[in-house]
């Protein structure tokens, strides 16, 4: 059998995977193994597959993904902490033919931005909200988030979250599913190839909903924060499966077709 050369591998017909052009060439600034990078990729792949790069406006949050606009090769706006759904509301209402999404962490979406999130959902803004829930404030160094699990350690709950003192974790996704304005509410993960495929399908569905003017689609991605959790990536994923998933069960919560 003839040797396979590099040139053979590079032939278009042998190509099995290619980074989407909707990701820039800038190296990701995320910690190795962090779910943010995978989430970015699949959102961009969906936009590429739907061929809507020229019609999409993304809203970046404040959090580790504050620089999402450095990596996503689309027009983007960077919002004040928690306010992305307010920006998205105006962008969509003023440009009904554009596709609009927010990409937000749990502190951004479920603490400081609770009002903006709930009211955008309740008004049924025709947008997509991508919600990265890693149970912690990654960017600021691992403080307690509204989503931090009971007993879970963080830099501001160093002995574990005492729910009597610090309150209970907030299940924002279940909460917004109650609102008449949400059309599709789902919780997914990106730690295995199978989950990545499911999440990508969910994101595709969310953008298809927007195309059909159906209302607000809300996709939570339960993710890891190795740095904040003080674990290596493998441990973090195991810990996420054992501890986060029982509290934040994966799957569709609301599907109005």
């Amino acid at each position, binding site marked *: 059998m003839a040797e396979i050369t590099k040139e053979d591998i590079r032939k278009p017909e042998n190509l099995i995977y290619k980074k989407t052009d909707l990701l820039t060439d800038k190296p990701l600034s995320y910690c190795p193994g962090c779910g943010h990078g995978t989430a970015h990729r699949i959102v961009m792949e969906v936009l590429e597959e739907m061929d809507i*790069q020229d019609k999409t*406006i993304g809203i970046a949050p404040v959090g580790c993904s504050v620089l999402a*606009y450095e990596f996503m*090769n689309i027009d983007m706006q960077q*919002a004040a902490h928690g306010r992305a759904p307010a920006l998205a509301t105006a962008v969509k209402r003023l440009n009904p033919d554009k596709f609009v999404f927010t990409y937000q962490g749990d502190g951004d979406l479920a603490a400081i931005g609770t009002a903006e999130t709930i009211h955008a959902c309740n008004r049924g803004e025709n947008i997509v909200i991508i919600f990265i829930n890693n149970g912690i404030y990654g960017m600021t160094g691992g403080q307690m988030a509204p989503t931090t699990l009971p007993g879970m350690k963080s830099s501001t709950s160093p002995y574990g979250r005492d729910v009597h003192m610090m309150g209970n974790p907030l299940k924002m996704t279940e909460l917004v599913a109650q609102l008449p304005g949400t059309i599709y509410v789902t919780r997914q993960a990106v730690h295995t190839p199978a989950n990545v495929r499911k999440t990508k399908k969910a994101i595709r569905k969310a953008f298809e909903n927007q195309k059909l003017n159906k209302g607000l689609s809300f996709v939570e991605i339960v993710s890891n924060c190795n740095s904040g959790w003080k674990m290596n990536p493998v441990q973090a994923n195991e810990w996420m499966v054992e501890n986060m998933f029982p509290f934040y069960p994966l799957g569709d919560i609301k599907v109005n077709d």
Partner: protein
Amino acid sequence: MKGNEAFAEAAIRAGADGYFGYPITPQSEVMEYLMAEKPHERTGMVVLQAESEVAAINMVYGGAACGKRVLTSSSSPGISLKQEGISYIAGAELPCVILNVVRGGPGLGTIQPSQSDYFQSTKGGGHGDYRMIVLAPSSVQEMADFARLGFDLAFKYRNPVLVLSDGAIGQMMEKVELDEQRPRFTEEEIIKNTPWATTGKTKDRERNIITSLDLDSAKQELHNHALQAKYKLMQEQETRFEMISCEDADYLIVAYGTSARISQKAVDLLRAEGIRVGLLRPITLFPFPTEIISKLADQVKGILTVEMSAGQMIEDVKLAVGCRVKVEHFGRMGGIIPSPTEVVEAMKTKIIGG
């Protein structure tokens, strides 16, 4: 028309694309008028009652970042809530118009008119080194005029413009002449006139990013230098004021908005007594008419500033005057409008006799 209604109607006619607000006295008529007018039918303008002033100003950010003509209005406590958003808008260099129909503070204060938000309006309010162009109407006509002028200046400089009114002018009824309807921007005009706007990345251009963030200190400093250069240009090109009876004046009153109306009557009363007083009315509070006040300081024997506050604009007047002549403040607080005779008294006791 009421001042607030004139502003709202003028905004529609200026070709506004979107209004985002939250009710608060004494400016709720702005959104009430807009909703009643159905501008979505008249021009396609979007009017949305937001869940808070915080949301409203961030909706303005989102809309402005798309190159749209967007505005919001509120009164003092609501404007305080908007400060973070305004700072972001200034940092990201987005055009928009913000109306503050000022009421007395601090705190919930009163719903009656005041001018105690001067510092907040002209010196920052939010965090960081930024400025807004601040237009101070003193009539219902100017409420209407400054809606359109506000948009034009905002787009000229890619900067937020604040219309600093007060409860008296917002609620007052006067005759007003309105401009003809100007069409809203077309998609093509937006792409041509505001090429930085997020309109969707097409193959023929790089992506557009609207942000106030730059973690590289050297670049952030450069950005700040560029902002300061822009503010300096505004000072050179956009300073506006009105001079009333200043040619032969021995004494000067400096006042804006409602206080300028009262002071104009006081000038007439004083002149009837043979005391030659003039009125300098700043129309832009930033940029402040420093140069003309400095010039007048060489002519007059004393200057009285009249403000419905504890004395805020007086600091800028003193900066313009230095120690050349006496500068004193007269004002009422808590929602009380001074009377012309009170101003006459203050001029006599604090400046002429003082």
